[in-house]
């Protein structure tokens, strides 16, 4: 499969009064054409910073890309000047934000905000742009687009605004769409509509999507592959089936076990992950998850675990996969999910740095 985006060993930090916050600490992943990668993690895990760095939306200073490459379409975005980025941002890469009220301009008609993309990036003239804007609004499922195109964001409901945002992001047929918690602020029924819309549009346009969320239900619904982030690192990555049916990292176990299941009547206590995420001004030595990890071994507090490869597509960074590690049982709620996947290697393999 053809790679559209490849992020290599990305490190981003912010200079604050309290010291340097290492928000992203060596993240590597790739995205194929036409696929959806979900990035999961809690607030502060670096998932939003990663995606904003791809768009080069990190304010510098205080932010700084310390290391790494972002290869998009064969070019390294890290080396681009702000001027060069302007031609890519909004054209080849579109973005949808969590809060549609603050990301649409309240003083501009919705139609105008879509037309702006078309006239600027695709050099359309005004009347053609308006035609296309109406078409786009219809495409994202807004009724009476001829009337809606002349309305302001405040005249739209939350779900409608998010649709308008999607129309803006898709106006220039971007190759990559970054959706940062696009449905978190919406009701479940509206969320379902937006997810269906995004999948439908992806089928039609072949756009690749990076979908950032903390809702594992949404992940199961939209993703082809999943990356789980914790404390500025990817701790596990694999296809959606590998993550949900054969998770290996204790943090992924914790996430899956802490959610009550809708179809079980089990009322026993939820397996909460104790404690709270680490402070990234002083990132912990060793495995960032170790202090909250009931399975942590002595080595977790001293040495950072390497990436282990469980199958061609499944990676996890935990010492538990080391041949010398003791066999442990995942939590009960996770054990119920486990399945034997045929694509797994007989033994997990340590991945060398260069890969």
């Amino acid at each position, binding site marked *: 499969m053809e790679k559209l985006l490849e992020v290599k060993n990305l490190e981003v930090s912010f200079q604050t009064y309290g010291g340097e916050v290492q928000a992203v600490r060596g993240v590597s992943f790739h995205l194929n054409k036409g696929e959806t990668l979900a990035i999961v993690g809690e607030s502060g895990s670096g998932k939003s910073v990663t995606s904003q760095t791809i768009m080069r939306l990190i304010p510098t200073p205080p932010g700084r890309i310390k290391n790494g490459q972002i290869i998009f379409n064969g070019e390294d975005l890290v080396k681009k000047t702000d001027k060069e980025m302007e031609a890519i941002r909004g054209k080849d890469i579109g973005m949808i934000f969590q809060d549609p009220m603050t990301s649409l301009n309240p003083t501009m008609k919705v139609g105008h905000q879509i037309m702006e993309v078309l006239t600027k990036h695709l050099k359309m003239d005004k009347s053609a742009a308006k035609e296309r804007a109406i078409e786009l609004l219809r495409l994202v499922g807004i009724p009476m687009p001829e009337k809606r195109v002349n309305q302001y964001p405040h005249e739209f409901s939350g779900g409608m605004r998010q649709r308008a945002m999607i129309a803006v992001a898709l106006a220039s047929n971007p190759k990559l769409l970054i959706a940062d918690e696009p449905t978190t602020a919406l009701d479940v029924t509206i969320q379902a509509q937006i997810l*269906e819309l995004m999948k439908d549009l992806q089928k039609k346009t072949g756009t690749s999507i990076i979908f950032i969320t903390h809702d594992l*239900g949404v992940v199961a619904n939209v993703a082809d592959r999943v990356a789980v982030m914790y404390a500025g690192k990817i701790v596990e990555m694999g296809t959606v089936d590998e993550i949900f049916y054969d998770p290996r990292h204790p943090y992924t176990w914790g*996430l899956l076990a802490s959610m009550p299941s809708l179809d079980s009547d089990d009322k026993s206590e*939820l397996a909460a992950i104790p404690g709270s995420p680490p402070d990234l001004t002083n990132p912990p030595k060793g495995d960032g998850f170790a202090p909250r990890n009931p399975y942590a071994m002595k080595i977790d507090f001293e040495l950072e675990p390497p990436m282990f490869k469980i199958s061609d597509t499944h990676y996890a960074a935990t010492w538990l996969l080391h041949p010398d590690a003791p066999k442990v049982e995942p939590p009960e709620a996770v054990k119920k999910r486990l399945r034997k996947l045929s694509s797994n290697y007989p033994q997990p393999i340590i991945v060398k740095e260069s890969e």
Partner: protein
Amino acid sequence: MAEKQKLIEVKNLKQHFNVGHGQVVKAVDGVTFDIYKGETLGLVGESGCGKSTTGRTIIGLYEATSGEVLFNGVSVHGKKSSKELKTLKRKMQMIFQDPYASLNPRMTVADIIAEGIDIHGLAKTKEERMKRVYELLETVGLNREHANRYPHEFSGGQRQRIGIARALAVEPEFIIADEPISALDVSIQAQVVNLMKRLQREKGLTYLFIAHDLSMVKYISDRIGVMYFGRMVELAEAEELYRNPIHPYTKALLSAIPLPDPETERVRRRTIYDPSQHNYKEGEVLEFREITPGHFVLCSEEEYKKYKEIYS
């Protein structure tokens, strides 16, 4: 459960807001339900359906437009002496959604928690007051060193614990939790829900749990009410509601929840609710009727007969 004692009785509660230009928003439009002692009633629905307004009216933050709310047989609304009001307010407390906006940033944690203790004169001496604060902090999983800090020094989950400690300070019988976990991370949500369940067991609290995360509501609630446009459309025991939803809106709502299981997600079919599908005739009366024991649905006489046939 044999004899269930009613703690809260909500009778045909209406809350209309005048928004000017002669327009009235009927946020809550005739809601009737009871909450039994020691149970958790979940209230779900989309934003704007009136679930938060219902909670706020029950506790008396709004004066009801019409209808009644009885707490232990005593009406919450209407004229009361300040003494009566004080005793009533002590028994009902609220936990809010936003742990950032609901704590006064200029007060220390000790003062925030002890405010209720001071108002109701529950501590005779300074030492007793602080002792209570320390106890409460430990109850909610914080420690006594936190008492002299300010809210900004805490994370969202810790702040929500402070909010819970504040609610517990006056030893209430009934707590309204309005989306208490929506603003928290997944890994922290479970901690707060576990804490709330433990407190309920230990102190025999009664909860009204308002939320839109249906899987969490199902987990914590004994019974669940579904609201749609200011009315309650269905009320049943949690398991029953999920297994046998009757009202088409409940069915649509349940079918929209994405589950953390890729295989079921691939084949999931969503049902869509269209209010016109009922085809109500002119003059048909919609009432809350009991289809199977303890399972109520808002329906017309005709639908009632139909549901009765199918489900019982």
